[in-house]
């Protein structure tokens, strides 16, 4: 609903976007009837909500294709991209974050912390451009962008097309995640329960794995949820760097063409996903930490 209001508040009639400059009055009126922007706002709103309930996201103003169908085919690029990026981030952030905390007095522990500071300051598209420069232009190992027209049917090409974008997302996301892993580990290291476990005779790694991971994971998971959601939504920029036909490039094109059904569709689906991810993170936290279960909502 918020989406609907926000989009309709935008100036500019989508009918104008359908036609070129210099269209006649009749053409404009006909185009308006076709996209429905001649109807009063409440009529548009009621039909929008009605269709939403039936999961009918309408058809694109520009291409006349079904919005849901196009989202579906674009998802086959964006979802794997987000997933691989997420995996890279986890693989990087968790071991390095713990290492940075446990060895914070050694030079490499400190170095990891400093490098992770870069994560919040580096624009993700610049990392992408640098990786392209290195791996596609100088080393010629991987393609600089693009995705096979046949999609995943052309598996080999699809996978090689995914490596650099996923790596880009993973590096940037991993760097910011690392800071939270490090902070959570430091909290655990200073805790009484770890000292008790050590006093009861557990070795340091043993105590860290048995007691530390579970305690440290709770705050990290809530950050994970937020990061995953924003990676999914932030795919817009990455898809542009690597010219991938994903959800982000669909949104960008739809915004430029004032193709409301497409913009609405993408936003609706992504809002749904963001809420789902938040919900999943909430559940995961409760599974890990029994103390949260009795307390009701995890985040107030």
């Amino acid at each position, binding site marked *: 609903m918020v989406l609907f209001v926000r989009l309709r508040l*935008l*100036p500019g009639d989508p009918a104008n976007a359908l036609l070129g400059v210099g269209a006649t009055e009749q053409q404009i009126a006909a185009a308006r009837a076709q996209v429905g922007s001649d109807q009063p706002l409440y009529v548009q709103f009621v039909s929008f909500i009605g269709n939403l309930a039936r999961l009918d996201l309408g058809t694109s103003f520009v291409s006349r294709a079904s919005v849901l169908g196009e989202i579906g085919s674009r998802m086959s690029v964006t979802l794997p991209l987000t997933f691989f990026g997420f995996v890279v981030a986890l693989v990087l952030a968790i071991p390095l974050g713990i290492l940075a905390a446990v060895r914070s007095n050694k030079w490499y522990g400190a170095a990891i912390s400093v490098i992770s500071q870069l994560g919040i*300051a580096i624009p993700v*598209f610049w990392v992408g*451009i640098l990786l*392209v420069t290195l791996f596609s232009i100088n080393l010629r190992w991987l393609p600089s962008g693009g995705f096979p027209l046949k999609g995943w049917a052309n598996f080999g090409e699809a996978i090689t097309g995914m490596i650099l974008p996923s790596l880009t997302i993973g590096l940037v996301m991993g760097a910011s995640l690392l800071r939270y892993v490090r902070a959570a580990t430091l909290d655990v290291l200073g805790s009484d329960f770890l000292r008790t476990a050590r006093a009861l005779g557990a070795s340091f790694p043993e105590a860290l794995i048995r007691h530390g991971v579970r305690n440290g994971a709770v705050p990290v998971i809530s950050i994970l949820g*937020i990061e995953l959601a924003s990676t999914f939504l932030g795919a*817009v920029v990455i898809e542009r760097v690597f010219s991938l036909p994903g959800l982000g490039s669909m949104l*960008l094109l739809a915004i430029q063409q004032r193709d409301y059904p497409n*913009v609405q569709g993408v936003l609706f689906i992504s809002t749904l996903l963001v809420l789902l991810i938040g919900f999943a993170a909430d559940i995961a936290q409760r599974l890990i930490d029994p103390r949260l279960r009795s307390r009701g909502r995890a985040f107030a």
Partner: protein
Amino acid sequence: MSTATMTAPTEKKSHSLALKAGLLLVGIHIFMGLLTLVWLPYDPTAMAGGRLEGPSLLHLLGTDRLGRDLFTQMMIGSRIALIVGIGAVAIGAVIGVTLGLLAAFASKWLDDALAATLDILIAFPTLLIAMLVVAASDTANLWSAIIALGIALSAIVARLTRILAKRVLVMDYITAARTSGSSWPKIVAIHILPNIWPTLSVNFALQFGLAVIAEASLSYLGLGAPPPNASWGRILQEAQGTVYTAPLGAIAPGIALVSLAIGVNLLADGLRDTIDPTRRAR
């Protein structure tokens, strides 16, 4: 800020180091930005040399594919980044602080509704909200980008303000002020704003960095200010095609962006440690 001098010597050293490094990095950009107002090496729109020339004494960073001097463009980029950062944070602060204070004072029901809306808005990256606002304005220009980013940032500011203000509102001195007959606007001006200001201002510095990067992303996507404005994002986007022959064009704007963003983050860290006495112990 003079209270910082009372901390232990070792603490003070590391704090002032972050603060100094931050000041230096940001200072370079401010100097460049101000310099563009009175002097530029070349006309930014004119062909100053051959196409895609390498760096030389005449062109410190070489030229772009239209033969324009890259260093000149980078200097203008500093100015644009600063204008965007300051403008967006100012707009975000005005909207955000007002909304946050309203939410803190509002009835339970209204407060819950506002808080839930803010949470949903924050779940969306700044960039995405800004894209939608830019799409709304028919002509893309620098101001539409600034306003868009300001609106996107305001949700974060509003949430923070709400939490901070609520924490102050339960204090005894607020009740005392109320009983002695102060009006709410007066309490906001005398008690609440001065109390939440230190934390807010640190947050504004962080948002400044966010805004600069988001503007570069917008320009990179072609939704930022149109050509005469040499934003770093646009320079990067133009240079991406020629990265093999002229790598500097794709590297220099990135370094500029990162240095400004790290500069403000360091500044924020240094400020936080100076302002907030509870963090000094660490």
